[in-house]
C-alpha cells in the first residue's frame, strides 16, 4: 500500500491536534512507515508540549497594566497635553495683547512727545538754558547741520513775525535731537524740533495733536522726524500753520 505523503498543513495540524480522527489516522499510518519524518514530527510535538509547559508559569502581577489604570493614565496625559496646548495659546494671546499695548514704548507714547517735552523745558522759560543763543540763521543752520544732519532745513518765519532766538540739543533714545526756538517779540514762541527716526526707523505720517495746552505738528522728511510745537492758542496755531505750510 502506497500512501500519499500528508500535506504540510496536515502535518502541523497533526502536531497541534487540529485533525479529526480519520485524517489523524492517515497521518499516523504514513508516519509509521517513514521513520525519519516521524522522528521530526514527534520532536515538534514534544517541543510544543515543552514550550506550553515552560511558558505557562505565572508572571508577577503588574497592577499598572490594568486596563482601567492604563485608561486613566492616557486620559491624564491627554489632559496634560490639552493643558499645554491651552497654555501655549494663552501665552500667545497675552503676548500679543501686551505687544500691541506696548507698541509705542521705546519711541515715546505719542508721536514726537519728546518735542513737546523739550518745548515745555525751554520755551515756557523763554529760552533760559539754550546751547546757542543767536538770531543769526546762518549760524543756527551751521550748528544744526553739524549736530543733527546736513540736510536739515531751518524754516524762515520772518514774514510771520517770528525770529529765531537760539537752539538747544537733546539726547533722545532715537539719537541727537535739536530744537530751535522762535519768538515774535510779544511773548509768543514756536519751536522747531528735529531728530533722527531712531533704530526702529519710525517715520511719521503728517499729523497734529494737542496735549496739555500745547500743540504739536509733526511729519517726516528726508530721513528726519520733525515737529513744530507752540502753545495751543490762536497765535501759536497761526505760527505753526505757517511753519508746516512752508515745510511742505
Amino acid at each position, binding site marked *: 500500500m502506497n500512501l500519499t505523503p500528508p500535506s*504540510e*498543513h496536515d*502535518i*502541523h*495540524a497533526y*502536531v*497541534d491536534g*487540529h485533525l479529526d480522527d480519520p485524517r489523524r489516522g492517515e497521518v499516523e499510518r504514513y508516519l509509521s512507515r517513514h521513520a525519519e519524518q516521524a522522528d*521530526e514530527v514527534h*520532536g*515538534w510535538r514534544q*517541543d*510544543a508540549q*515543552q*514550550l*506550553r509547559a*515552560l*511558558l505557562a*508559569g*505565572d*508572571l*508577577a502581577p*503588574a497592577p*499598572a*497594566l*490594568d*486596563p*482601567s489604570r*492604563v*485608561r486613566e493614565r*492616557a486620559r491624564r496625559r491627554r489632559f496634560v497635553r490639552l493643558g499645554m496646548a491651552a497654555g501655549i495659546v494663552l501665552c500667545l494671546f497675552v503676548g500679543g495683547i501686551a505687544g500691541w499695548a506696548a507698541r509705542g514704548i521705546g519711541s515715546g507714547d505719542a508721536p514726537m512727545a519728546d518735542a513737546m517735552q523739550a518745548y515745555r523745558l525751554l520755551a515756557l522759560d523763554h529760552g533760559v538754558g539754550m546751547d546757542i543763543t543767536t538770531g543769526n540763521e546762518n549760524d543756527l543752520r551751521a550748528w544744526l547741520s553739524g549736530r543733527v544732519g546736513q540736510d536739515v532745513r531751518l524754516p524762515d518765519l520772518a514774514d510771520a513775525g517770528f525770529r529765531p532766538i537760539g537752539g538747544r540739543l537733546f539726547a533722545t533714545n532715537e539719537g541727537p535731537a535739536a530744537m530751535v526756538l522762535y519768538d515774535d517779540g510779544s511773548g509768543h514762541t514756536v519751536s522747531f524740533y528735529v531728530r533722527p527716526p531712531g533704530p526702529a526707523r519710525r517715520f511719521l505720517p503728517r499729523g497734529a495733536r494737542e496735549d496739555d495746552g500745547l500743540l504739536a505738528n509733526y511729519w517726516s522728511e528726508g530721513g528726519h522726524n520733525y515737529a513744530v510745537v507752540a502753545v495751543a492758542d490762536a497765535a501759536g496755531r497761526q505760527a505753526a500753520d505757517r511753519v508746516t505750510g512752508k515745510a511742505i
Partner: protein
Amino acid sequence: MPTPNIDDDLRTMLPRLRRFALWLARDSHAADDLVQSTIERALSRWKTRREEDSLRAWLFSILYRLFLDGKRRASRYALLIGSLAEDEPTWPSAERVAMAHSTLAAFAALPPEQRSLLIWISVEGLSYQEVADILDVPIGTVMSRLSRARRALRQLGEGDPQSPSLRLLK
C-alpha cells in the same frame, strides 16, 4: 455603557499579552511598555474592531505591530549612532533560571517572527487562519514558516553544530 466589559475583556487577556510580550521583547521593562501601548491602542480603537475577529488575535496583532515598529525605530537609531550591536536581553531572574532549560534557551534564540509563530500556534492555540491574518500572508506561507520555525527550534535545542550560524543569520 460598554466600558466595564471592555476592561474585563482586556483584563482576562493580560497574562497572555504579557507572556507574549516578554518572549518577544525578551526584556521585562520593554515587555510591560509593549503591553501598556497595546492596551492603550486597543482602548482607542475598540470601535474599529471587527466583531467576528477574536479579541486574542486582534490584541496579538496590535502588540506584534508595535514591537516591529519599535524595532525599526531602534535599528534606525542604531544606524544613526553607528552601532549595530544588539543589546543582550535583560531577563528577570525567574526567566534566567528557566533559561537553563535547553528548549527555552533555543526558543529565546529564535528570530522574533519564529518566536511569535510558535507562541501563537503551540502555546496560545490560535488557528492558522488567525496567524495568517496577523502576519498578512497566505495560509500556505504560515505553514512553511511554521516548518522552518519548528526545525530551527529542534536544531538549536539539540545543540546542533549549525546553531551558531543560525544565530548569526537572524
